[in-house]
């Protein structure tokens, strides 16, 4: 049986944030004709001789400056990182390689791909979510000291 953590459940801010993410992806495709896939935008910078560096950097700069602008007017929401540096390094490597092999992440496949009704993105999303569930189960419930 699944036990729901009602005290952590924040449906309204989650929905509102989701709508804002959707608006960002909508603006990007309707204004620039591109998919707002973060791993693709970042990973594309590592392919040499590309002449599309400026807009990629602009998009990423926008993302990174979001918390900076936020912090000028209000308190930042909690960002709690429990994983230690070794786990963060392994996690980063897996996310970096995996998203490039799989051509996308939560934004490109999850948000944009599902919105496009792409069967490829549906398979990718179900796969990475399943892997995420399994990994958290292993780390939190199977490993000693969890």
């Amino acid at each position, binding site marked *: 049986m699944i036990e729901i953590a009602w005290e*952590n459940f924040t449906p309204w801010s989650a*929905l509102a944030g989701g709508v804002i993410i959707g608006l960002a992806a909508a603006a990007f495709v309707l204004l620039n004709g591109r998919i707002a896939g973060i791993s693709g935008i970042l990973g594309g910078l590592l392919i040499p001789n590309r002449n599309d560096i400026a807009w990629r950097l602009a998009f990423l700069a926008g993302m990174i400056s979001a918390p900076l602008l936020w912090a000028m007017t209000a308190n930042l929401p909690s960002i709690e990182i429990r994983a230690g540096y070794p786990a963060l390094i392994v996690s980063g490597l897996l996310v970096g390689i995996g998203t490039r092999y799989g051509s996308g992440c939560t934004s490109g496949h999850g948000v944009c791909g599902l919105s496009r009704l792409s069967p490829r993105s549906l398979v990718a999303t179900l796969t990475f979510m399943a892997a995420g569930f399994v990994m958290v189960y292993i780390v939190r419930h199977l490993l000693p000291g969890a």
Partner: protein
Amino acid sequence: MKFNLASLGAGLLFGIGLLVSGMANPEKVLGFLDLAGQWDPSLAFVMGGAILVGLVAFTVAKKRTLSYLGFEMRLPGSRTIDRRLVIGSLLFGAGWGLAGFCPGPGLVALGAGKAGALVFVAAMIAGMGLFELIEKNRVRH
């Protein structure tokens, strides 16, 4: 210039959305991925809200050859479901579940000045670089 400005704005809005939704918080993400513990279903609502808006936008986008700013519509055309897609997504999901970060939230947490996010993002870029190296060698042989 218009293209870069729209990119900057979309990135900023995306980052705000990640902050509002709770996605930028790895602990919140892990609460969603932890089905066997105390499950926090919030992130399903993030996906729901985003896809609700996305469905409308992409329905419009699919019918156009040029964007509203006059740029070429570049939507992915591939429909092949192959090993690369599945194995790549498995690796990504495993990394996501390990620390609670996917690429966007990692960048936002980096902007919030979190040292752990810097470590994650550096490793992620290294992983992407590794992918390019492997690909280059694969094509050469």
